[in-house]
């Protein structure tokens, strides 16, 4: 094929990626929340259109008009009203906003999985015309590409015009920058934010409808693809629409042009061609200077504190019922025992997040990547005749350097940028390692000697979990633990007290990666095979949400979360746990400290303690003014 034709073919995908990026940037600028659920919204709307057209036989135009024009904005309004408005009011930091949007993401993915199943639909209807338009010089361009290009440019011009030249645009920026001040100036902040949400969700829906025909429609695939276009938004530093559009088109064209190159034996070029957006996301996050993050009254202060901040004060003998419950599956039959085997393994992965996020305040959405690498390394070692038990711990050790590399960016990054970077690492690892047949095929995973029996293996898992919990408990009262909490609570103060903040962060990422790898290797050994889908990067988001929901600074909560996730999916249907975790994460704004803390509080009849009270004392004049603007 000619270079020009390849380029034109790439423009179509580029245009849709540009639309997604414009949508994400616009809703970020308009709402102050980086909406991770953007991809999930796109996926849901695409599914709705598919359902209405392919199953119910509606005319395409009616379905698209209803879903993109009404349903998607309505979803946005619901999210604003019931999830994010309360958080804004409380002055919640970026970390809690992130968890809330993660909750929406997880909830939507769970709903789609439950409603439509995980099998891909191959016939999403296309709203762009087929056929092509001839160009001078014997080439032609698909009409659809032109339409897609037209849509993205029209949207960008509209957004730019509204924000720059209308009163509404000025109000919008005021609300995002300083909501409270905007309200004092008489701007109806809630209505302005709601409009931002509605518009952002509409763009998400439009993206989904345009993108779906280009690929198969399934709950993870489309969502992930839209998530990958975050790279484009990052290149534009979450601010510039023209840069986003140009970058997206360039990547689309580049992806297309790469297909001209000879396929190399490693499959690297091939992988690069299929995953250029992911690579750009990682590179952009690592290379570009700090993004222009907006809003948030406490953007700098303790941005990553998610837990109660109190840590655990478990009653004496706390471990007795715990051990009893953990040992119970030993009495189960082989079939149920195999399911129960997932619990300790997953719990170990979750505990790694407690360490990272709960204790050290670092966000990692990439634990699925480390866990998968652990399973893969263990399998590779076992395939090379290394004894299983040795392979298990060697694999965990081998992943530690990967954690070091991921921890490196964390030195200077926090909040949103760090979360996205860890996700990008997991996505790259998934695409370039897990998905490559050459790595997965010769991996041999099995219960290690002398724990071949189902019961014996479960006991081994429990021993590993016990070891990890012991370390965590020890950490809680050690100098290292104090140091990590100090870094979480106040980086500047920690440095002033002589704590090497950078090393502490890198260290905790490395250890967290090793622990997650241990859990991943056990998961793989339990399943007796390496399954790339078990370590999908999207799962990293679900896991993070699950741990936060069950109290991010509680190791016991993490074990509970693992048990619940496995039990829910086993007892009902796959995807149920995702829905529950998503719903709880969305509700997290009402539950400081996570589910267990809230349940304990309700049982004890104590009122919820505010997590971060906002120190405001109004003068009589201030009270009068507030009564006027906020009746």
């Amino acid at each position, binding site marked *: 094929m000619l270079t020009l034709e390849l380029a034109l073919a790439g423009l179509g995908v580029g245009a849709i990626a540009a639309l997604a990026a414009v949508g994400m940037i616009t809703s970020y600028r308009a709402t102050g929340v980086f909406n991770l659920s953007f991809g999930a919204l796109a996926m849901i709307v695409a599914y709705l259109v598919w359902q209405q057209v392919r199953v119910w036989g509606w005319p395409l135009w009616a379905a698209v008009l209803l879903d993109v024009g009404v349903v998607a904005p309505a979803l946005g309004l619901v999210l604003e009203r019931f999830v994010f408005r309360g958080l804004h009011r409380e002055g919640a930091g970026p970390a809690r906003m992130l968890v809330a949007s993660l909750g929406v993401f997880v909830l939507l993915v769970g709903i789609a999985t439950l409603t439509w199943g995980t099998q891909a639909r191959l016939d999403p209807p296309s709203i762009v015309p087929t056929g092509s338009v001839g160009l001078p010089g014997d080439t032609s361009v698909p009409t659809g590409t032109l339409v897609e290009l037209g849509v993205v440019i029209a949207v960008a011009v509209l957004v730019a015009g509204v924000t720059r030249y209308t009163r509404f645009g000025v109000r919008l920026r005021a609300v995002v920058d300083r909501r409270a001040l905007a309200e004092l100036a008489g701007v109806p902040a809630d209505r302005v934010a709601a409009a931002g949400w509605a518009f952002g969700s509409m763009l998400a829906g439009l993206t989904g409808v345009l993108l779906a025909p280009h690929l198969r429609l399934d709950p993870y695939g489309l969502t992930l693809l839209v998530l990958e276009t975050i790279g484009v938004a990052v290149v534009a530093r979450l601010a510039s629409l023209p840069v986003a559009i140009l970058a997206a088109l360039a990547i689309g064209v580049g992806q297309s042009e790469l297909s001209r190159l000879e396929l190399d034996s490693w499959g690297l070029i091939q992988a690069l061609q299929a995953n250029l957006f992911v690579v750009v996301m990682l590179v952009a996050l690592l290379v570009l200077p700090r993004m222009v993050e907006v809003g948030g009254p406490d953007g700098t202060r303790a941005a990553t504190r998610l837990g109660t*901040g*109190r840590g655990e004060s478990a009653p004496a003998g706390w471990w007795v019922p715990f051990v009893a419950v953990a040992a119970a599956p030993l009495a189960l039959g082989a079939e149920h025992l195999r399911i129960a085997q997932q619990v300790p393994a997953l719990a170990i992965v979750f505990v790694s997040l407690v360490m990272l996020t709960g204790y050290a305040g670092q966000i990692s959405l990439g634990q699925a990547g480390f866990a998968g690498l652990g399973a893969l390394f263990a399998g590779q070692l076992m395939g090379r005749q290394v004894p299983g038990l040795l392979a298990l711990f060697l694999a965990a050790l081998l992943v530690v350097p990967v954690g070091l590399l991921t921890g490196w960016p964390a030195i200077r990054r926090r909040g949103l940028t760090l979360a996205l970077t860890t996700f990008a690492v997991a996505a790259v690892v998934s695409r370039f390692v897990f998905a490559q047949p050459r790595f997965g095929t010769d991996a041999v995973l099995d219960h290690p000697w002398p724990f071949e029996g189902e019961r014996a293996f479960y006991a081994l898992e429990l021993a590993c979990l016990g070891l990890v919990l012991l370390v965590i408990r020890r950490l809680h009262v050690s*100098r290292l633990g*104090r140091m990590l*909490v100090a870094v979480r609570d106040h980086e500047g*103060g920690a440095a002033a007290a*002589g*704590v090497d903040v950078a*090393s502490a962060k890198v260290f905790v990422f490395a250890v967290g990666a090793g622990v997650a790898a241990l859990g991943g290797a056990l998961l793989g050994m339990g399943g007796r095979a390496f399954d790339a889908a078990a370590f999908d990067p999207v799962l990293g988001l679900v896991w993070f949400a699950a741990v936060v929901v069950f109290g991010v600074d509680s190791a016991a909560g993490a074990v509970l979360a693992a048990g619940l996730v496995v039990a829910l999916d086993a007892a009902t249907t796959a995807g149920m746990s995702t829905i529950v975790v998503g719903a709880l994460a969305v509700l997290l704004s009402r539950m400081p400290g996570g589910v267990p803390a809230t349940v304990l509080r309700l049982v004890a009849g104590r009122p919820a303690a505010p997590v971060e009270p906002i120190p405001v004392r109004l003068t009589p004049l201030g009270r009068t003014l507030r009564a006027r603007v906020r009746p």
Partner: protein
Amino acid sequence: MSGPGSRAAPGEDALRAAGIVRRFGGLRAVDGVDLVVPAGLVTAVIGPNGAGKSTLFDCLAGGRVDAGRVHLGGRDVTRLPAHRRARLGLARTFQVVSVFPSLTVVDNLRVAAENRSGASAPARLLGLPDPARGRTRVAVEAALRRLALTEHAHTPAGELPAGILRMVELARALTASPSVLLLDEPASGLDDAQADRLRHELRALAADGLAVLLVEHDMDLVFGVADTVHVMAAGRIVASGTPAEIRADARAREVYL
């Protein structure tokens, strides 16, 4: 209180800054400041908001400088990050209190004591037992007593009122047995009794041979305890002298008093 840090003899320059420049874009927030903080004395920097006091503070404590050098006890620390300077005996407090809210008061202090003592970096990271455990305990207890925090020792810092937190932050700084103490508006949020205690402590610390530098808006405190006062405006030091001299200085009165 004696610690591992080598303390300068009274009157000697414990901290010396020369030609400090810090730019933000085109703005020179600190524009060629020379400053010495002698051991055994209290030095104060005053000036209007935006004069560059806090930026200067950050330059001394470990922030980036665009030009100039910082010497701590005769050693050039210009390129050392904040935690290295802290371990060399430079302690500081922040304008917005920087305690660790989820740690108890005693643990807040322990962090400083443990990271000051001589354990190697790997041992520190691996959480090996502290070889200087006894010394840590002594330093923590001494600081608690000194600032009357013993009754709050096992309360999480997040549950304490702002005035007490100022004291906790100061205690944390003292726990590291510093030779130089930088205090950024230590009196803000204190009630009169606490401010009195602070005044008294600052004098006592200087008498112990500590080099104290404070940035403060409370003129009663500054003129009550400082031996030397520098007036900063627009990134430069425009007047220096004893409190009496500064009160009489026309230039200082014009920019600030």
